[in-house]
């Protein structure tokens, strides 16, 4: 297993440096070293799954906009929580260039919706039915409106397909896109280099903490 198996807090950093594997420079190495230095200070951190946390799957999606300085693609991030802590997460550069934050968030939402379906099915097999649609939190209200509204925009095909896919899932009540404030957006940690304060807050929300909680 690799380190990110129990460390969603370094997921974005690792995803970021992994983009430069073909032609790394001192700059990238410095960023990689920073991850090590962070690990050094948080070596005994992991995820704590609390007893009686509930079986409802809750999702968070976020995207930066055109964060990659080379090709101007955005980074999608999602986190799925079960009870007190994260069970599934991802940080990934999007495959296509988007023309607005709304579009970028849309791509992120569509990707995370696929993961939501898969997680719901597994839970079902394990006899933990998700009776209600899986709530996915998003801090972009335009994206939410678009997912519910039938208004079609003159979008190119790759957006259009995702648009219909997401809208179908919302319509058949598999997922429910819900607005949340940016500061409560856990998936922020998967898409941005956060300031210490925000980082520590979101890390705690992920259920990541020191093993000393057990003592």
């Amino acid at each position, binding site marked *: 297993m*690799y*380190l*990110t*198996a*129990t460390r969603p807090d*370094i997921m974005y*950093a*690792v*995803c*970021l*440096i*992994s*983009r*430069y*594997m073909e032609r*790394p*420079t*001192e*700059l*990238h*190495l410095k*960023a*990689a070293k*920073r*991850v*090590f*230095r*962070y*690990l*050094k200070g*948080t*070596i005994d*951190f*992991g*995820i*704590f*799954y*609390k*007893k009686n*946390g509930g079986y409802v799957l809750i999702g968070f999606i976020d995207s930066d906009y055109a964060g990659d*300085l080379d090709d101007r693609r955005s980074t999608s991030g999602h986190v799925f929580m*079960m*009870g007190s802590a994260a*069970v*599934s997460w991802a940080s990934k550069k999007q495959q296509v260039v988007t023309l607005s934050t709304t579009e970028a968030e849309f791509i992120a939402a569509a990707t995370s919706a696929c*993961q939501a379906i*898969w997680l719901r099915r*597994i*839970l079902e*097999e*394990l*006899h*933990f039915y998700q009776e209600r649609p899986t709530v996915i939190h998003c801090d972009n209200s335009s994206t939410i409106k678009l997912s519910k509204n039938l208004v079609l925009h003159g979008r190119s095909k790759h957006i259009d397909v995702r648009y219909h896919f997401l809208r179908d899932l919302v319509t058949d009540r598999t997922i429910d896109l819900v607005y949340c404030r940016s500061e409560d957006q856990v998936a922020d940690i998967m898409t941005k*280099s*956060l300031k*210490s304060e925000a*980082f*520590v807050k979101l890390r705690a929300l992920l259920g990541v903490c020191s093993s000393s*909680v*057990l003592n």
Partner: protein
Amino acid sequence: MDETFRETVKLGNNSCISVMGKGDIKLHMKNNIVHTISSVFYIPDLKSNLISLGQLQEKGYIIIIQRSRCQIQHPEKGLIAEAEMTSNRMFPLHIQHGVQKCLSTRVQDPTWLWHLRYGHLSFKGLKTLYEKNMVEGLPNINNPIEMCEDCIVGKQHRDSFPRGKAWRAEQRLQLLHSDICGPINPTSNGNKRYFITFIDDYSRKTWVYFLQEKSEAFIVFKSFKARVEKESGKYIQILRTDRGGEFNSHNFASFCESHGIRRQLTAAYTPQQNGVAERKNRTIMNMVRSMMVKRGIPKTFWAEAVNWSVHILNRSPTLAVKNITPQEAWSEVRPSVDHFGVFGCTTYAHVPNEKRTKLDDKSVKCVFIGVSEESKAYKLYNPITEKIIISRDVLFDEENTWDWSITEQQQTLIDVEEDGEKSQESESELQLPTHSLEEISPNPSSSVSIPNEDQPSVSEPRRQRTRPTWMIDYVSGDELSDVDATAHFSLFAGSDPTLFAEAVKEEKWKKAMDSEIEAIERNKTWELTDLPKGQKSIGVKWVYKTKLNEKGEIDKFKARLVVKGYKQEYGVDYQEVFAPVARQDTIRLVVSLAAQNSWPIFQLDVKSAFLNGELLEQVYIEQPPGYVAKGNEHKVYKLKKALYGLKQAPRAWYRRIEDHFEKASFIKCPYEHTLFIKTGEGGKILIVLLYVDDLIFTGNDEAMFSDFKNSMMADFDMTDLGKMKYFLGIEVVQTGVGLFIGQKKYAQEVLERFHMENCNPVGTPTEPGLKLSSDLDGERVDSTYFKQIVGSLNVLDSH
């Protein structure tokens, strides 16, 4: 020390050596505390000093050997020493014992001091310099009574030949003398074997360049020409050299011709005609010898010494120019000598604030080897890091000399170390091997790259791993010289054999192979047959491994027969190879559900799992080495079950266990093929998650647990690991309040692998607001190394 004490010590080979005394040894710690080890035997025949762990523990010390580290702890003071295990499983502890010092007082006398600073220049010369006020910063010199021993060692000569009167140049660069000196053995730190001097006849100023080969003389001459002509505004008119091939080449001749330089070549085998250059070489070498003898500097530093000598000689009186030094004659500025230090003396270079933390030492101890050409700063050598430092902020301790015997010993060990373990770390800096030639100067404001002519160049980066501050007193770890390493190696079990021919000689490996064959036979893995026509047989080989238990002790010797699967052909020898493994998300989902319900999670491990897989394809293998059936040597084995190394082995195993689950009425999760669920009446549930030969299971019914375990035990050779504690490198703690998963152990290993275990921690994994680009202009680093870093943190999702 009690020298009357006598005793003998018995060695491993039953031989005895005698103890010649007994006494106490004082150890100097950095914080000026002196520890004493009492009752130390003095055994002159013993090469290494041994410390008895048994006696230490008798005295109440605590010794912990774990994770390749040996720690000695004092019951009250805590950790006092730590040694890292070397490749041959030794724990070398390097300690600094107090060296008895005899201080020489004579350097305090300015006459002697300046004699030394001036590279053992004659007292007469020094007097001339002072009296004629030829340099700035020199005090009055008295002729001492004693003789300088180093001068005699370095300068004694035969009586001179009579000298004729020669024509002298009237202006700068009108006549140049040049000669090559060398080859000098050993080669310098920068791998140079020769030096070439250019002497301006008018000023007698000397320039020196270092060469690897004589043929480089031409290139050097061109750059020298450009430099001096630019500096003086004059042109070289005559070049006087001997008839060495390096000056006589066609290229050299045509270059001189096209630049209007007249050549004066000596008659063959008459170096006397090139007197000025030859004499200068002798003066330089005399000075170098005297300086190096004095300070016991390793001979490889001759180039630095030559450089410094030339610097001095340009500021010394010479008979050829009256009342001024060559430097002044050349540049028309009176040189200052207040920057002079004794070559090879100890210095302390200030470490700039940027490079250290509050409690770090404010200076590093170095050796003075000259002044920088490029900047107004001293050139120092740090024998510990083996780096040249250019620093302006230097304190001299001209009385003391670096103890090179210690450093030289360390030098060898660093060389040894490089084979096994590449880059070392300095603080949190993590550098790549590709940057080995870049020196890090501790003072960025005054840092320059090292002049090309001679750097203690470094074939490989030699970085120092910083230990915690309290460990600095101890040099511990891999610091055995190569001699020691071989000497001690025989004492210890070597590594596992790689060849059958080696292993078969040892009883333990023979036994291991016997038991592997036995297990294969018991498992009904194969049958001996003739090879059908048109079929190919695949080779097999033995692999050997000494298995250690969690305490690092030898557990068992394992021999495994493997098939050379890389010789298999797709479609012929195998069809399907894919075997699913559980996704991380699924593992966490199961773990999380178990935690919320307070269900226990158990873990089982299937021994030699792949041997259970039944093969669908016809696979024939050769008879294993050492176990060829007598009288049936031409026959081959037809495999019924899989062996390790076969391409389809993982698939065959998966098919087998899937079958087992199906028979035990589990339902395979259609979305995750390694997840099996069994339900019973009243909401009873058993969840099994498979990861190749490891599996975990959880649920809400005790009876189902034991049923499942028993049925697995009946079908397969299993290890019951009890409650899940360590699964795929993830540490699991199951408690009443919940369940914690972490990877501390793995993270620690990763930090150590990249030598970051002592780095300074930070609060966030990325610099806040950081955005990266492909940084096309940035300094490239080794991409393989970078990939290893990323790979240790994460494997990229392919989906």
